[in-house]
């Protein structure tokens, strides 16, 4: 009986995983090969959805491009910023715990609708940002009406939510053996070189972890563009999750929406595998024999 105790503990989780994750996951795979409008039974359509997606859907191509630009700008920016702030907060300064908390707060609030609404006001024509630009003698910028700027505001919103990545970086920085820094100092290493050749290599496992997590989250971004720009103008901030939502719940094409969702899943999976494959070359773990 005792040997089944572990299984008994796991059962609720396994049931939850099966019912709320595995079944919808496989269900959406099936639906992606069907024509399903919610009001009538799914009708098998083979590869039609995927063929249309890759051969004649201009919106998908635009949305995919926008999504890739968003992910490849947001993730590095956010990681760099999180590491920068974590590095500063690693110093023993007066009131440091207050600052650590203060910098983490945006991450708690960041994904909320309220913050997205606030962001909309900050970057509006007469918003805070333009007021600052005008005060500095510049011309106000059309952040949301200009297709070249709209995505940038969404990117900044995501970067602003750097707290969780920062906390992980901070924990990793604090776990680095101080004797390594002492040895470097004795050898006359500058702060910059110490950071590049000691801190960064020892942080690579955490950088790798944050990279994967942030990349997956960035591919799923929805609230920001939905509330702030509705994907516009000219679909310049129309990320794939918005397109999936519109196809599913505005055009009632669940089959097509599922196909887009699966393409997005495959993209995330491939990029994750590439990251894992490349990690052998740039991620260093404790006890690693590479030199």
């Amino acid at each position: 009986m005792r040997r089944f105790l572990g299984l008994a503990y796991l059962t609720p989780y396994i049931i939850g995983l099966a019912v709320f994750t595995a079944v919808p996951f496989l269900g959406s795979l099936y639906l992606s090969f069907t024509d399903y409008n919610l009001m009538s039974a799914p009708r098998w359509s083979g590869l039609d959805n995927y063929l249309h997606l890759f051969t004649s859907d201009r919106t998908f191509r635009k949305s995919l491009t926008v999504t890739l630009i968003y992910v490849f700008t947001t993730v590095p920016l956010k990681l760099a910023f999180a590491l920068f702030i974590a590095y500063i907060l690693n110093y023993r300064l007066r009131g440091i715990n207050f600052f650590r908390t203060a910098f983490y707060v945006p991450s708690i609030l960041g994904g909320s609708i309220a913050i997205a609404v606030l962001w909309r006001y900050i970057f509006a024509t007469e918003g805070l940002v333009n007021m600052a630009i005008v005060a500095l003698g510049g011309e106000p910028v059309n952040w949301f009406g200009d297709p070249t700027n709209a995505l940038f505001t969404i990117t900044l919103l995501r970067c602003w939510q750097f707290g969780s990545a920062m906390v992980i970086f901070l924990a990793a920085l604090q776990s680095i053996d101080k004797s390594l820094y002492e040895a470097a100092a004795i050898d006359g290493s500058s702060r910059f070189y110490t950071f590049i050749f000691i801190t960064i290599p020892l942080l690579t496992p955490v950088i790798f972890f944050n990279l994967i997590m942030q990349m997956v989250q960035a591919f799923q971004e929805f609230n920001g563009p939905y509330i702030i720009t509705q994907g516009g103008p000219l679909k310049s901030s129309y990320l794939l999750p918005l397109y999936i939502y519109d196809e599913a719940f505005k055009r009632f094409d669940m089959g097509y929406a599922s196909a887009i969702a699966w393409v997005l899943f495959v993209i995330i999976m491939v990029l994750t595998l590439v990251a894992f494959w490349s990690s052998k070359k740039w991620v260093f773990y404790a006890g690693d024999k590479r030199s």
Partner: protein
Amino acid sequence: MKLLSTVAAVALLGTAAHAETLRMSWWGGESRHVATQAALEVCGAKYGHTIAPEFTGFDGYLEKLTTQMAGGTEADIIQVNWPWLPLFSKDGNGFLDLNSVSSTLDLSQWSADQLASTTVDGKLNGLPVSTSGRVFFFNVTTLADAGIAIPTTWDEFFAAAEALRAAKGATYTLFNAVKETAQLLVTLSVVQATGKDLVDPETNRVAWSAEELAAGIEFYARLVETGAIRSMQDDAAAGNVNLFEKPDWANGLIAGSYEWDTTYSKYADPLAEGQVLQAVPYIRPAVGTIDGVYRKPSMMFTISRNSAHPEAAAQILNCLMNEPEGIDALGDSRGIPSSAVAAARLAEAGKVNANIAAANAIAMAASGPNVSPFNEHPEIRGLFIDTLEEFAYGQISAADAAEVIIEGANDVLAQFD
């Protein structure tokens, strides 16, 4: 006294024996939520039913309802937008055929035309709550400040736009036109020129030629070029914000819009102290041409085909629409009621907001072709608005935009052949 209490007790027992628990879903603003909950309370008490309210704003309501309909978990009584009928009930079986509960529901309060508008394949899928149309609203305070008379023709409109900017400065614009409103102004222009709705009911295809639609799109361009409305670029600078939430609207810097008559309060309430919003007759190309009104059953109440208690739901529906308790509680929260008895009772009691009544009278009196629900099909509307945006940003010519819209709309319409 004793006899009375005995009768009351028996009556209570009688209703309690059939007491059901129902759900009702609707969208709306704060005043509608308050009025509907009050109405459900009095109607529920009258028949001994308990009705759980499910209400939200308009945004997201369609998505929620669609998910519920797909899962068969929709509320017993549902507020449905009329253009959604083809989506949910292509063959008339999406909702309960209300003819089946006509012994409870007094259908004689609606005209044959009104009932026909919500009938699909001979099945009465809903009851029109009110009929509404787009009307021109102007901030008459701003116009008076600038010494401008309310325009009645498009020539006067463009002259007024110029006069307003000259009098008050370039930050003032005469009119608003974004997203659906921009689309409906293009539609208005084409309807006024051709007398035809977007969809030809005979062929179930777009009734306009590419040239006719292109002329409508050029009309939109003229609105921007003359400064009568803001460009899409300038308007988008505020982000995804509704007109009534914009400070420029509240302060009278945007002096008018083309909105549903029923939304008068939504647009009038945010105006700054002393500003007055007024519905005015249709602006037309010239005296004697048609108004081109975009008028439709604004929404309908229906009963779910999956309701376990259709008779109880019909009792509540009848109470809301035809019985004094429901009529008084709902008031004009959904515009002027389509139910004859409700309209008469509210008018008699003076319970209709005079501004809403005036706006509704303009919409009802205006001339124009019958409007197809496909005007608001999500795919057709999305295509129209997206293509118009491409035109506004200089990505596509008016002629090409017209071709794209007509071709895409016909593809959607073909699915309903």
